[in-house]
């Protein structure tokens, strides 16, 4: 149990992929215009992450070192195809919003990075824990990022009107610059807190 939990908690806080490792920023910036997008995108990535980490840690002993990257990509692409098809079938609206970023999970830095840096060197249990932790850390930041941007830029949260009707939304926040600004602030807060303790 401890072997599962340690990498799991590690991924959510201490080595959060977005705030600390600074990987996987492209989908984080692109799809975080609403909190709901964050949940779907995060869960899709988490599923792929856990699946690919599991398979790669299983086959790591038989994978030749020279061609490991293509093999990783093949494994990841398999899971991405599953997610892609499932979302297309059961969440078509969200599939339309996330669009190209679902297939692009294949080349998501977090997934390839964890396969290379963690699953390739660790056992099955730890790799699953790492996958869940990293995925949840990713999802958490996406939801926070999407929530802030949606609240300021649209006056809603998860699609519900939160701000009073007289509130004039900050259009910039749901445009790309808003993503950069918000993520910059989140990272600054993280550094500020980290520097204090």
């Amino acid at each position: 149990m401890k072997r599962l939990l340690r990498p799991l908690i590690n991924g959510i806080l201490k080595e959060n992929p977005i705030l600390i490792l600074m990987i996987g920023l492209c989908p984080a910036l692109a799809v975080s215009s609403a909190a709901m997008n964050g949940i779907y995108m995060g869960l899709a990535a988490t599923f792929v992450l856990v699946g690919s980490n599991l398979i790669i840690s299983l086959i790591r002993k038989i994978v030749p070192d020279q061609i490991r990257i293509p093999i990783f990509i093949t494994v990841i692409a398999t899971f991405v195809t599953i997610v892609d098809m499932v979302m297309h079938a059961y969440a078509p609206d969200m599939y339309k919003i996330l669009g190209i970023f679902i297939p692009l999970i294949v080349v998501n830095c977090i997934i390839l990075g964890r396969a290379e840096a963690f699953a390739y060197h660790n056992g099955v249990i730890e790799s699953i824990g790492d996958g869940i932790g990293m995925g949840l850390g990713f999802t958490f930041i996406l939801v926070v990022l999407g929530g802030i941007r949606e609240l300021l830029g649209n006056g809603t949260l998860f699609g519900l009107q939160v701000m009073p009707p007289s509130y004039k939304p900050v259009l910039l926040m749901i445009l790309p610059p808003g993503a950069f600004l918000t993520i910059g602030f989140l990272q600054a807060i993280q550094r500020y807190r980290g520097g204090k303790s």
Partner: protein
Amino acid sequence: MGERFYVSAPPHIKSKYDARYIMHQVIIALIPPTIAGIVFFGGRAVLVLLISVLSSIFWERIILRIKGEKRPLDGSEIVTGLLLGLNLSPLAPWWIPVIGTFVAIVLAKELFGGLGFNIFNPALIARAFLLVSWPMEMTTWMSPFNGITQATPLTLLKLQHSYTPYINLFLGNRGGCIGETSVLALLIGAGYLFYRGVIDWKIPIPYVLTVGVLALIFKQDPLFHIMAGGLILGAFFMATDYTTTPITKLGRIIFGVSCGVITILIRLFGGYPEGVSFSILFMNAMTPLLDRWTIPKPFGYRTLGRNV
């Protein structure tokens, strides 16, 4: 010779041109356009400018406290606040300047390290932020004296192909930002800055001339394009900011010409009627490259190479 000679480490010559002096000169130079704006747009303009300057000072104090820096205010926040206020419509709601100065002072200036370290002109970043976020509030202009909403000359040109008479453009009797309308008042302020040696000709003059020449090439009225919109305000007061423009002679001329090209391109072919603020912001980003590219050769310097 009763004076005592002090022996001290260099530098021995102290210039009065420190940040505070320059900022005060800019504030003095901004007085004519401010008065012109108040004359034409009345109490609403006073309100916008006042909120702008006061909130600017407020944000500066707050962010300095958060950053734990104990230094006196150097006047640059007043310049930023005033410039932003002059860049707003007199009909802007009260929260527009408050948010605008937050963006200018906190985001664009202090988070980058304060005066002298900011990459972009703070007032223009704030204006761009506001323009993208609240297009409605930022582009509702009023006609002078009577408070009826009216489009700016450039919008009129873009939508109705109608030219505003020169005399109205020159004196400022037209719709627009508080500070951009009166070319006469802006030129008085700019003349004062030239006289004091605070700004030089190398950015504003090429900028204005480029706009005029390009307008001529594209078969537009060059004088109209020079006097309409925020070109004079931008060229003489924004594109001459020390921090965000190149320091080399050639770099400054390239900066001015490029600003002019971008301005005309946006005005004639872009979606926005006015392109001065975006052109200056764009060239702000190019400033480090221009500086590196145009390092002057020291006297007697030659590259060792082929001829050796």
